[in-house]
């Protein structure tokens, strides 16, 4: 299982961050996540694998400066 913003989501082999975000409402608005403590941004969502038992947090990225 994966913990996605505090909720349990089933894990499957070779799951990417992009695939995981199918469980999120308005995935197109997610630009940055934290995967097991490491920041991952949208340009690498497809290429980044999610390990089993991962903890994923959606980062509200609207700020800066």
């Amino acid at each position, binding site marked *: 299982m994966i913990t996605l913003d505090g909720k349990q989501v089933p894990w499957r082999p070779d799951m990417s961050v992009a695939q995981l975000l199918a469980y999120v409402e*308005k995935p197109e*608005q997610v*630009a*940055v996540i934290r995967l097991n403590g*490491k*920041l*991952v*941004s*949208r*340009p*690498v969502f497809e290429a980044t694998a999610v390990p089993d038992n991962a903890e994923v*947090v959606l*980062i*509200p*990225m*609207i*700020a*800066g*400066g």
Partner: protein
Amino acid sequence: MTQLEINSVRKVAYERPAIENGYNNQTLGIDLSSTAVDIKPVPDQMKERFIGGKGFDLWLLWDAVSGETRWNDPENAVCIASGPMGGTPGYPGSGKSIVTSISPLTGSVIDSNVGGYFGPYLKFSGFDALAITGKTAGDTVILIDGIDEKIEILEMPDLPNDSYELSAVLTGHFGQGKSSHISVVSSGPGAKNTLFGCLNFTWYDGQRKMTRYKQAGRGGIGTVFADKGIKAIVARWDSVSLKSNQPDDLDGLRTVSKLYSKEIVTLDPKQNKMASLGTTHLVPIMNDFDLLPTHNFKFGQHAGGNLIGSEVFQHIFDKGFDGCWRGCTVACSHGVRDFVPFTGPYKGKKVFVDGPEYETIAGCGSNLGIFDPSTILEINFYCDNYGLDTISVGTSVAFVMECFEMSQISVEHTGGLQLYFGNRLDALELIHQMARGEGFGTVVGQGIRRMKALFAREYGADAAILQDIGMESKGLEFSEYMTKESLAQQGGYGMALKGPQHDEAWLIFLDMVHNFMPTFDQKAEALHWFPMFRTWFSLCGLCKLPWNDIVPEDNKDTLEPAKVMKHVNWYADYFTAVTGRKSSPDDLISMSEAVYNFQRVFNLKMGYGRREHDAIPYRAMGPVTVEEYESRTERYDKQLIEKHELDIAGLSVEEKVAALRKFREEQYAELQDAVYQRRGWTQDGIPTVATVKRLGIDFPEVLAVLEENGVSA
């Protein structure tokens, strides 16, 4: 140093008024030339229209200078103010000082928002704002002592020059054993020898038992300060509580403060982790999105980008509370203990580095091709200690590095420095030269606008290419975000009042990443609302970070997530509770709009503030060189074909660069049209008479400036 030589030049006793709803209702003026100390009442109109903070600064500065005043004229003022909510200990981010002056870099109004204890201590000592005019021979220290109710102008000839040591000595001396009662404003040798000097504002770190520093960096106010002969300003105050501002509704203030603080404590660890990482979390994100300035803004990404961000600094930052004002739960002012510089006067000695923040990492790291945290820390340390703005230093050095690599300048001009990207030792040597006022450092310390003219005139460099790659607008160096793919952020930089600093508008993610504002009108609306709301923080003595660096969990489900309206409503409640002036979110925007337009007219008074002054270099809009185009060929080709419907078959890269440039420059001009219209300005970028009347700033002198510039009813 055991014994300090102190000569009292002037000593004035005063009676500290009782603060009422966040205001003392008086300001302090000090003329260094005559040593006159002038305490003036704050008229109701000043509070109503200008609110406080930057608004009060601008009011005082406008009175001090004429349209002919230059930055180093005695009548130029350094103005510092808090704001009605400034100094509230329980509400996150309430300790800011706002500093304004006529800038050495731009020739017009500059403002800088800075943490540390000075602004609140100035206010609790009895003054809503401070304006310093005149000049002295040097070594002047101004003491504003709210505890003993006295103002003193002192000559202290044997103080250290470096800002850190100077502030520590003054804190020890005036603190009388209670260092937390002192905040010092100082500059350093770099401020004296360049045009982009910064000011260091101190706060006392009780946990680490040391003086800490925040910087009013932009626009060279430290240079004005040094030119006036001011060594330091010291404020002395003791106790602070939620009651210190004598708020109109203490219970209301307590309620909203608790709500906000609790939310930040709960959510920050899940979100951006400001309290442990500060703004360093932005580095890997910007790098991933091709937004991290690299090699003088040529590129937005580098393989080394991940070596200089939060993943590294989380292990380097010293653990502990890092709030630059009491009780701030964002607490993002991190630092590094026991750093040992490998160059310069502190070589081999252990020092504490306050920072780095994102801007310094990007400006003095990736933009220089330096991906080594130690060098970034060393540049950070020396810039602060010398009183140099890390943003202008970073962007200026990046410019000369590209000029060097393009052979526009050579070792003959640099005095032997090999200024290719990544040469950390010569970059550091250049900074030491700036502080010493020697060699090529004195040239780079003039800033990019003057360097462009000098390189073309004296060194035979190509003026057109320098114009394209020199990242300045209005004379101010760009802060550290790539804007090529965000038209809204190009406008956010180009149409910012003081020059290209992101504090007015940071729209890259909303525009480029989320595509929330696809039309010109939507971009123009964003370039109205966001600069206005962000301006409001500087009117009130507040920090912007708590507003949208930590957001409510349900924020994404709101109508306009980018505005974080739950927090905006809390700010309106906060303002109402302190001042007793019942306010809604729309009222906050109106408050800012008046001050914002006044500042635009102020620019006009100083000979700027027109459409032509909102121009930005083409490097900010798109690829200048073939190398840049070819680094993102797929992106640019696609845009030419799909967005601009151009048949690119058979075009050379040079022709495609030129075609893209034409489209992008047209887009920027179209954006200017839309923004000026939304702001109620003429197509030359000047507020109309109807606009200044609507905002209640139709003072005779404002109307006179408009009329002189061809705008009348």
